[in-house]
């Protein structure tokens, strides 16, 4: 049942040390503000699940919040490496990082199966490659009708999903538009959830009969954080800041410059730091 709270209250209430946490958003609506709040609250030993770890997990890994990563593509999209992720895997810095590696198809199916209340997902995949040799969670089931061998993986059932969306109403119904990714599935697959939104409105606006809405009784904490996806984007509010993604390459390459950036922009700031991005680009769009 949805509760509208501050972001710090939401993270304090929903995300605990040792939890399995899925911050989702497929390039769009990535919950950057929530990621920063988790870092500020000093969460440890997290198992992070996410198709594309991206800057949010690079930051959490570099800050030492993460024990294990479950993922399918760990890069800075269109730019190159995630340096903090690489430093952890290649050099064990700031500490050793356990990894469970999948393909996108597997991850998407695992969320879908989790949302469907199933213990596993089956799909046609992982044929001939080496991933099944390094990931014991990849098994096979045989179709009882055709004899075809299909890939099987456990469904994702995180302790908590964290997503960003365009808007919620005061009851906590959450509406998402644009590139949908696996956010709806991540929330439905998880025990708890935190949803940050650009705005909270009295009533959801006039919308398609088949709008993507998470009803309030499927959602946990809802917190209004305008700009909370920056430098990712919120369709209809502000665009992706591709320059920042490029700039991140230099910031994160070096351990000291990474720490300096995190101190200035995360540890010494609050969720309100994101508001400037929302305002700037919304104004520009109008």
């Amino acid at each position, binding site marked *: 049942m949805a509760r509208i709270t501050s972001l710090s209250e939401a993270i304090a209430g929903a995300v605990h040390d040792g939890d399995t946490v899925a911050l989702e958003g*497929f390039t769009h609506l990535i919950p950057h503000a929530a990621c920063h709040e988790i870092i500020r609250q000093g969460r440890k030993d997290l198992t992070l699940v996410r198709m594309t770890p991206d800057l949010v997990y690079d930051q959490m890994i570099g800050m030492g919040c993460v024990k294990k990563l479950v993922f399918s*593509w760990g*890069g800075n999209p269109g730019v190159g490496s995630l340096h903090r992720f*690489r430093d952890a895997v290649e050099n064990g810095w700031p500490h050793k990082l356990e990894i469970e*590696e999948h393909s996108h*198809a597997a991850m998407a199916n695992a969320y879908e199966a989790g949302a469907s209340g199933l213990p596993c997902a089956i799909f046609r*995949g992982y044929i*001939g*490659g080496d991933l099944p040799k390094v990931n014991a969670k990849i098994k096979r089931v045989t179709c009882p009708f055709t004899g075809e061998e299909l890939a099987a993986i456990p469904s994702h059932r995180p302790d908590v999903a964290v997503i960003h969306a365009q808007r919620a109403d005061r009851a906590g119904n959450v509406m998402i538009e644009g*590139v949908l990714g696996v956010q709806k599935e991540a929330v439905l697959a998880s025990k708890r959830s935190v949803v940050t939104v650009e705005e909270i409105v009295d009533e959801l606006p006039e919308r398609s009969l088949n709008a993507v809405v998470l009803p309030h009784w499927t959602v946990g904490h809802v917190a209004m954080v305008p700009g909370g996806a920056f430098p990712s984007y919120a369709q209809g509010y502000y665009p992706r800041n591709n320059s920042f993604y490029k700039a991140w390459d230099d910031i994160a390459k070096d351990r000291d410059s990474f720490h300096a950036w995190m101190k200035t922009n995360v540890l010494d700031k609050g969720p309100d730091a994101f508001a400037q991005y929302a305002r700037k680009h919304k104004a520009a769009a109008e």
Partner: protein
Amino acid sequence: MADYKPTEMMTIAAARLLKNDDICFVGIGQPSAACNLARLTHAPEITLIYESGTLATKPTVLPLSIGDGELCDTALTTVSVPEMFRYWLQGGRIKVGFLGGAQIDKFANLNTTVVGPYDKPKVRLPGGGGAPEIATSCGEIFIIMAQGKRSFVEKLDFVTSIGHVSGGDSRQKLGVKTKGPTKLITDLAVFAPDPQTKEMIVVSIHPGVTREQIQENTGWPVKFAAKVDETPAPTAKELDVLRELHARTNRAHAAA
């Protein structure tokens, strides 16, 4: 002949392979440039699909990420990522998939996972993403990669996605019914599988490139088709459209 860079030749050679009625699963970078160049030149009705869920998108600038707002704004519609991988990719609805990688072998198997041992990597690469299933679910695969001895290798450190496996009918023996890599477009040449062995052999050499250059940049003994074409040089129009596309893209990304 216009002055152009080898990567421009590579993009243009790839774009030319695409047809108006193709349905393409487009990756970021070279594939995205090639597909949109095709769309802006000879294949205006080509269907471009990005794994973020955008169906039949017509971006005016190239996306930096696989899910830029531009892709969604110009799409016929946008579906969820589970639906993309279930109904669209696994459903067998994609004719052409694009792949690239850090390493490729002569059977066009690809590594985008790791250089060195998996447990003790020298370089940890991003990983497979959509590639393992793109490689087996799309009707055929075009690979775009600049050549070099460190990337065109005798043996992959890790097989992220399969091409023709160990050649011959080894791909079909795994139960895969799709064609796999039918073209490998590099900055020097175009390769295609030998009909029997399935080894990727050179079928067309870009203007001004020698067989020796190709061999020097390939980690296995390169085979050449009985008849090797010279790739037609980029036309002025192709270069104009490609450069204007990149210029538009750079302006847009700098502004954001």
